[in-house]
């Protein structure tokens, strides 16, 4: 579960956004969409949780996409092809695929919440599920993987500043342009998840949550999320990061 993964490609795919393809036998065979790697960055005390964005089981690779946000991701972005990354994982539960192939499914991703949805979209379409994706980015320069999502289904991109697609949030996309949906999956910042949950309140949905983590494996209680307002909780790193929309209390 703790392993060294060799970087076999590294690419800047958008502003401050890096894609790395990592070589690993075991992780590439077992990963479920939505799981994450808990990555040790040299000189940093705590590991960084980064979603698995794609898996190529036959070539034994996993892909991560991360945004350079602070010191840790900045340092990680300096790692070169051939270097190894020390990871724990795959951690967390991942998205349940619910293989009722007829379902019309909506994926809603914002910013650094987009990566895990790509592998999810791939897996869903593989099993025949029809996927519509809404992706929200800060601006045109931050957009990545748009084409890749389009190859898998209808994809709508919005930006906060309107520099590409409609201006606004993922939840501003009007009903008219969306199919009737039976289920949704979402990953992104908390305010976005709240808005998604509210907008599609009648639709069964899955949310992938983010929180600052310590251990990343369920031992330290850093990442507890309330399941109600009466003291119930789940651990994001272990019980999540994916939860049904009802089971978590987003405050």
């Amino acid at each position, binding site marked *: *579960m*703790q392993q060294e993964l060799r970087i076999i490609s590294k690419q800047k795919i958008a502003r401050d956004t890096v894609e790395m393809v990592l070589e690993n036998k075991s992780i590439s065979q077992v990963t479920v969409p939505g799981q994450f790697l808990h990555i*040790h960055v040299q000189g*940093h*005390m*705590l*590991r960084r949780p980064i979603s698995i964005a794609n898996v190529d089981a036959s070539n034994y690779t996993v892909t991560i996409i991360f945004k350079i946000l602070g010191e*840790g991701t900045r340092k990680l972005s300096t790692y070169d092809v051939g270097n190894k990354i020390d990871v*724990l994982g795959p951690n967390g539960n991942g998205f349940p695929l619910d293989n009722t192939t007829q379902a019309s499914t909506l994926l809603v991703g914002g910013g650094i919440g987009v990566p895990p949805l790509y592998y999810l979209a791939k897996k869903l379409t593989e099993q025949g599920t029809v996927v519509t994706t809404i992706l929200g980015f800060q601006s045109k320069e931050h957009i990545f993987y748009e084409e890749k999502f389009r190859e898998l289904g209808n994809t709508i991109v919005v930006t906060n500043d309107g520099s590409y697609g409609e201006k606004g949030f993922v939840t501003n996309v009007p009903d008219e342009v969306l199919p009737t949906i039976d289920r949704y999956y979402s990953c992104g910042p908390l305010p976005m998840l709240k808005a998604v949950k509210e907008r599609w309140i009648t639709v069964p949905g899955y949310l992938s949550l983010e*929180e*600052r*983590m*310590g*251990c*990343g*494996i*369920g*031992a*330290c*209680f*850093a*990442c*507890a*999320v*309330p399941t109600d307002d009466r*003291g119930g*909780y789940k651990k994001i790193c*272990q019980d999540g990061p994916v939860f049904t929309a009802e089971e978590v209390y987003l405050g």
Partner: protein
Amino acid sequence: MNIAVELPGLALKNPIMPASGCFGFGREYSKFYDLHVLGAVIMKAATLQARFGNPTPRVAETSAGMLNAIGLQNPGVEKIIKTEVPFLASFSVPVIANIAGSTIEEYRQVAKAFEQTNQVAALELNISCPNVKEGGIQFGTHPQMAQKVTEAVKEATNLPVYVKLSPNVSDIVEMAKAVEKAGADGLSMINTLTGMQIHLASRKPVIANRTGGLSGPAIKPIAIRMIYEVKQHVSIPIIGMGGVMQAEDVLEFLLAGASAVAVGTANFQNPYVCKEIIEQLPYTLKQYGFNSVKEAIGKGIV
């Protein structure tokens, strides 16, 4: 090489144990290695009732350390005894229960509850948790309060009691002497130093609780100093902790006067760290001319 060490109520096959709150109740780490290799396990703090803890974020990273304000989240002593203690005991490793409370009465009751199971080898009295509103750190920064709670717990139970000292004090020796006088069987030191980090973009503390406890290598020099000072003024043994990352650090704690060593934050970076330290320790001791753990204890005091 003999790395066993004997402490009141604890016959340890080696001096290494995970620190309270950094290893949960062992379940997660048991997937990484057989917990039987450990000298002991210190469980996460137990309170009388279940506690949800503080709002998140609960952790932040600092230079060579981290802040945490978990807020004593735990399922309550009864549930711990029913589901967690038996699990840990199944590895036949001594289990130390870390207990916390808001009142002296709560400490007493939690202690009593642990005594009723025969699977707990010792108690660690957490009188130094900086992350809760009442109790915790008040007990740990006033010698009279520390003395009182120690006496009460000693009276309530026959289990050996290790009192965990807070480093957030002007005079650590005074605190240590107070709890020794109150009957403590050993000391555990140090808990975290109260710290804060401010998030520049949001202009507020990163930790929702505002302050958190600083742990990790950043605080090791403070831990070493406090143990070194206390060792010369008490005759009860010390379980040392604060920033241990590798076997060399363990030896530094032994030299300063610790008889055993707990490893906290390092588990988050390397889940195998306790096992690796245990494997390395004999070589490190040998390298520096020691034939046993016992031989090294307090040898750095000049």
